[in-house]
């Protein structure tokens, strides 16, 4: 008993949180792998997603204040955020449905690519393919939150290459208007690539987070491959944003484990660091989970997803006439 307590004391995060992080990371990875295999077996036309970012995306979702409306956190995500979505408690079957573009796809009714979430009841605004525009909308939800009072914040995420769009700079500027600072956690997930273009060939900035400095913004670059560090850094940054009602620019170095998308093959890239492997080694070292337990987690998620996918691929496609649905919302907003 004494020994157990000592071990728990030494853990960087509570044991149950470490386990939960692991479980979600594995689920997120298994989801992406299932989506890739659906794509490869002809049950989807395009795959893009976040394998290699789970160590960052999962803690982000866990730390969000979940709910609908300005009293809760808003998420303006890009297309690699499935870990965050699962951490928000979302059923992964929705992602499978979107991959298969079924009528039941809860995010777009079979209209949009996989990974393009939209969950109004969780303040997840629609993910758009158009790089970086989310950075322009984030100040808007944040202004509503600041006005509403309380501690809810807006989170916006996007890649490193996308910071070349002027929209990234606009976000830095609009969140720091003197006296009108806005509670936005501005995230850049830096995987060092924009499709085939290495970041080092186009960006002179040593850390992308340095871009915030001229605006007097708090900034940090962290190791997004370490879920513990990510959790701690995110907790600190989000606490700052919640309390101070000011922005924080957080850059997380992450991996692109299966390349850019199905357009580049969606194959495992051996050179990329795998956050899950590193984390599992740590969990074993801490004595939190052993290999067998962790394998069981993986099998459990993989099987559940495989089974769900088998059902999803039988679900009906949207009808041709449905293109006319939702061009406009009804008067009351629907």
């Amino acid at each position, binding site marked *: 008993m004494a020994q157990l307590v000592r071990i728990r004391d030494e853990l960087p995060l509570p044991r149950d949180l470490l386990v939960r992080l692991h479980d979600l990371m594995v689920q997120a990875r298994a989801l992406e792998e299932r989506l890739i295999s659906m794509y490869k077996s002809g049950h989807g036309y395009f795959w893009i997603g976040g394998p290699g970012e789970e160590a960052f995306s999962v803690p982000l979702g866990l730390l969000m204040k979940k709910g609908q409306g300005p009293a809760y956190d808003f998420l303006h995500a890009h297309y690699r955020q499935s870990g965050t979505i699962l951490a928000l408690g979302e059923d992964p079957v929705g992602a499978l449905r979107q991959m298969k573009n079924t009528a039941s796809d809860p995010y777009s009714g079979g209209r949009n690519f996989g990974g393009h979430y939209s969950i109004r009841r969780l303040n997840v*605004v629609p993910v758009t393919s158009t790089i970086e525009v989310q950075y322009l909308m984030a*100040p808007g939800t944040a202004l509503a939150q600041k006005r509403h009072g309380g501690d809810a914040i807006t989170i916006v995420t996007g890649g490193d290459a996308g910071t070349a769009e002027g929209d990234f700079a*606009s976000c830095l500027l609009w969140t720091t208007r003197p006296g009108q600072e806005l509670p936005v956690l501005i995230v850049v997930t830096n995987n060092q690539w924009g499709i085939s273009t290495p970041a080092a060939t186009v960006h002179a900035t040593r850390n992308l987070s340095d871009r915030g400095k001229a605006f007097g913004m708090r900034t940090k670059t962290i190791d997004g491959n370490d879920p513990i560090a990510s959790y701690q850094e995110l907790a600190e940054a989000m606490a700052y944003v919640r309390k101070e009602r000011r922005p924080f620019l957080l850059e997380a170095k992450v991996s692109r484990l299966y390349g850019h998308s199905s357009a580049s093959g969606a194959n495992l890239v051996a050179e990329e660091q795998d956050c899950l492997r590193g984390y599992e080694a740590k969990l074993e070292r801490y004595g939190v989970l052993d290999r067998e337990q962790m394998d069981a987690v993986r099998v459990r998620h993989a099987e559940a997803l495989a089974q769900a996918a088998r059902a999803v691929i039988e679900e009906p496609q949207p009808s041709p006439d449905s293109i006319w649905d939702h061009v406009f919302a009804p008067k009351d907003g629907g």
Partner: protein
Amino acid sequence: MAQAIRMALHYAEEHLGVTDIFGEDVGPPLGGVFTVTQGLSTAWNTPLDERGIVGMAMGLAFAGQRPVAEIQFCDYAFNTMDLLKLAGQMCWMCNGDWNLPMVLKTPVGAGIRGSIYHSHSFDAVATHLPGWRVVMPSTPLDAYGLMISACQEANPVMFLEPKALLRVRGDEPIPGEPADPRALSKMIDAPLGDRSGWRPQWPALSAYAVPIGKGKVVRPGGQLTVVSYGRMLPLCAKAADDVAAEGVDAEVIDLRTLAPYDWDLVKASIEKTGRALFVNEDTEVTNFGEHLVRRAVDELFYRLLAPPRLLAGKAVPGVGLADNLERASVPQPPEIAAAMRELAALAP
């Protein structure tokens, strides 16, 4: 018309939940380069960044606010076309999960010697953006009523302000407006000089709404249908009066809403007259008036007594500053009258 829109926005702040009226120089002290937003309690100045302005509006709408954003001149909205597309797509893209109740207002068109970058029209690009309501008043009362409707919409509404009409006074008063224009001006126009202590005195206004999607016959006639909107509308009405003396009896329709437009009204009129002239000032290749011509041909070909015509801006890269250039670029009263005459004279 500037005062009418301002009063509608005041009404909307007070009664329709409008939370933010913003754009470059929209807040105090200026209250907009055309004075449209003077004295409004939720008006504020943005950074000089049109993309940021549209993004802010979308974000506010996502969060349940009711934003009215301004692009100072529509000429400066072209770098936001992707965002405008997205705003129009958002509800459809997520299969109805979200909707964006936002208004984007922007002055359009020529007529104030605005030269190349203060004379553009926006109707062609706006009507090519699915998911938007697009309105464009030609009178102060319609401007008032359409803005009231825009601020009650569940979807993005583009409110195109014919800038040359912003200083025009209407024949029909806004409900609540004092009869004496000087009295109104004293109440709601910001004074010259230091304005820091100034507060407007708003008249008691009402929710007079012009429904989106409804056109209006501004001059009945039997021989020829003329469809226009915005700045060209009064020119068409005037030209119709002029040619009436020569025995040309034109029906003039103010479309007022460009999307969704009042096809029933237009169709019924063309069915009656057999002749149609569409007038706007946007450049004439891939022009919204061409859509109306196409629809007329599609649905009414066999009832047409003459080819439906479009009179629009010349397909040149801009409206030049010198009077000769502006006049040669966008439809002028004599040309409009001539087009009516010609069309009326064409034998079937």
